[in-house]
């Protein structure tokens, strides 16, 4: 999977690239408007991470060019502005999602995964991880083809973990993913623990290997290694 990161902030684009590479994405970086348009003209990407405020132009114009050229790339807007207008305009111009800065990298990765899944697989909407499979249309997860009876949060959690497999995800990132930033759940880690405990129990009951690892109490990792 090939991803273009259009972001003028070097440290942020480096973080994104480092994280996504570990999940086996191929990443390229464009630091400004011109570099981005050149790269888009020359290559095809599966997903483009697009910052709206670039030093020499607006990310929204890149979006317009993509639309004009009928390019099929999935686009995730990452913006510091987080304004309703930008969000609406971006989505109307054909962006697939909008992620306001600052975000957690696992969140970014999960969004990218969802966009690519929607764009590339066409009819195939099943995600697999060893004996676990998820039908993302019906929103049902299976273990060894036995359906798992997961709550909405547990389902979200499983999807999130698989999108970030082999990575340590902090409790803060999990909390934000499950409850959003409005609910201010930041310090209520007990709830995360409860959900993870239940998810793990349900997976093991259906004969799954225990993939969930707690990492020093500060985060979790979904891994088969």
């Amino acid at each position, binding site marked *: 999977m090939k991803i273009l990161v259009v972001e003028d902030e070097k440290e942020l684009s480096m973080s994104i690239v480092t994280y996504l590479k570990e999940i086996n994405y191929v990443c390229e970086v464009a630091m400004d408007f011109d570099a981005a348009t050149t790269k888009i003209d020359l290559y095809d990407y599966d997903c483009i991470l697009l910052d709206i405020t670039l030093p020499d132009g607006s990310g929204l114009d890149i979006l317009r060019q993509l639309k004009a050229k009928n390019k099929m790339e999935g686009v995730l807007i990452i913006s510091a502005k987080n*304004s309703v207008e930008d969000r609406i305009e971006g989505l109307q111009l054909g962006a697939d999602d909008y992620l306001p800065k600052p975000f957690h990298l696992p969140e970014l990765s999960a969004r990218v995964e969802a966009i690519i899944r929607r764009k590339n697989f066409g009819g195939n909407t099943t995600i697999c991880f060893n004996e676990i499979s998820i039908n993302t249309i019906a929103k049902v997860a299976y273990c060894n083809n036995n359906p798992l009876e997961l709550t909405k949060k547990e389902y979200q959690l499983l999807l999130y973990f698989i999108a970030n497999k082999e990575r340590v995800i902090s409790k803060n*990132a999990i909390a934000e993913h499950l409850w959003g930033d409005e609910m201010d759940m930041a310090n*209520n880690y007990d709830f995360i623990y409860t959900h993870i405990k239940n998810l793990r129990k349900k997976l093991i009951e259906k004969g799954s290997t225990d993939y969930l690892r707690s990492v020093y109490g500060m985060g979790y990792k979904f891994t088969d290694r």
Partner: protein
Amino acid sequence: MKLLSKYSRVHVITACTILLISSFAYYFIIRTILLTQIDKDLKVEEQEILDYVAANHALPHASDYKHQQIRFRKIKDSVAFRETINTIEYDAKLNEYEPYRRLSFPIKITNETYEASVYKSQVETEDLLQLIMLITAVLFIVLLSLIFVINRFVLGKLWQPFFITLSELKKFDLHNKQSLMLPESSIEEFEELNRSVTHMTDNVSKEFEILKAFTDNASHEMQTPLAIIRSKLDLLIQSAYETQVEQLQAIYDATGRLTKLNQTLLLLAKIDNNQYDKPEFVNLKALVEIKFQQFDELIKGKGIVPKYDLHDVSLSINKDLIDILLNNLLSNAIRHNYEGGSIECILTSSMLSITNTGPALTFDRTNIFDRFKKGSHSDGSGLGLAVVKQICDVNNLKVKYQYLNTKHIFQISLKTK
């Protein structure tokens, strides 16, 4: 006291004092002058009588005219002396007592001493004085009414530009972004006042805009460094040592708080800039129910018993804003609650109230909606209720806070102000 009343009062008191003093002075001066005139006349009579006596060695006839009488009477030599006095005599013709001026002086004819008395009526003098006093009194009244009229109408009109300026200033609202429009005045002082006031309010508005823009920009600019810190933390924990975990978690939490704080400041700036100005009809009952579902975990987690009494109410308001408002009120009601406490939500067509058990505030309750005002044990941002207030303000809703029977009550009146 109003300027005009104060001014009128000074005016009236001064005028009355001066008029009173002057009328007394007037009265006595005129009276003295008139008496002197009578005394002169009396002296002329005296001289005539003395001349007659010197020529004839006999007393002239006593006379009794309407305003002048001359009488003689024999007295002992020893009591003879000259005097001028005021007296009251009975006037048989008019059948009443009238004031007279009397000059008595001794006359010696051979060995006998007589006292001659010349009486002169003061009735005319009194009449004159009365007339003068009457004119004075009339003038007095005319003057006072004039002062009153002038103060009331002329001064009122003169000061009108000032009152216009004052009422415009009262209406002045920083959030309204409108420059003060003051009418021109022909009076230099008021014109100068208007210029100064306009200059000042323009400056204040400008500074306010700059400050707002600063908060806005500062918050925006902070998003990117925060994004970098977060992303680096997310990478760092992939290969962290166990000994670093506590510090990393602390950094995570602090970054989270900073992010939240920053986002809330941005939100406040956006509400301030009317970026949430598209109202739509929101089914409040449904929304409240959804919110309670969303917070269900938190509510149950704390063993809190929720109670509702919700009626079907729709409200025209921006959907994002009402969502944030309910979020803040509800998370507040959960956070500042006891384990096993209660939350009660009542929604009627006129108001929405959220009541929760909880310990009393550690600060003055009138400051509860101020930014960064929070209890000593609160781990919130201190901005949640400021946001609630702001949202209510821009939507012309009134929000009230009460602490009754160990319960915090937030009440939003849904009838717009």
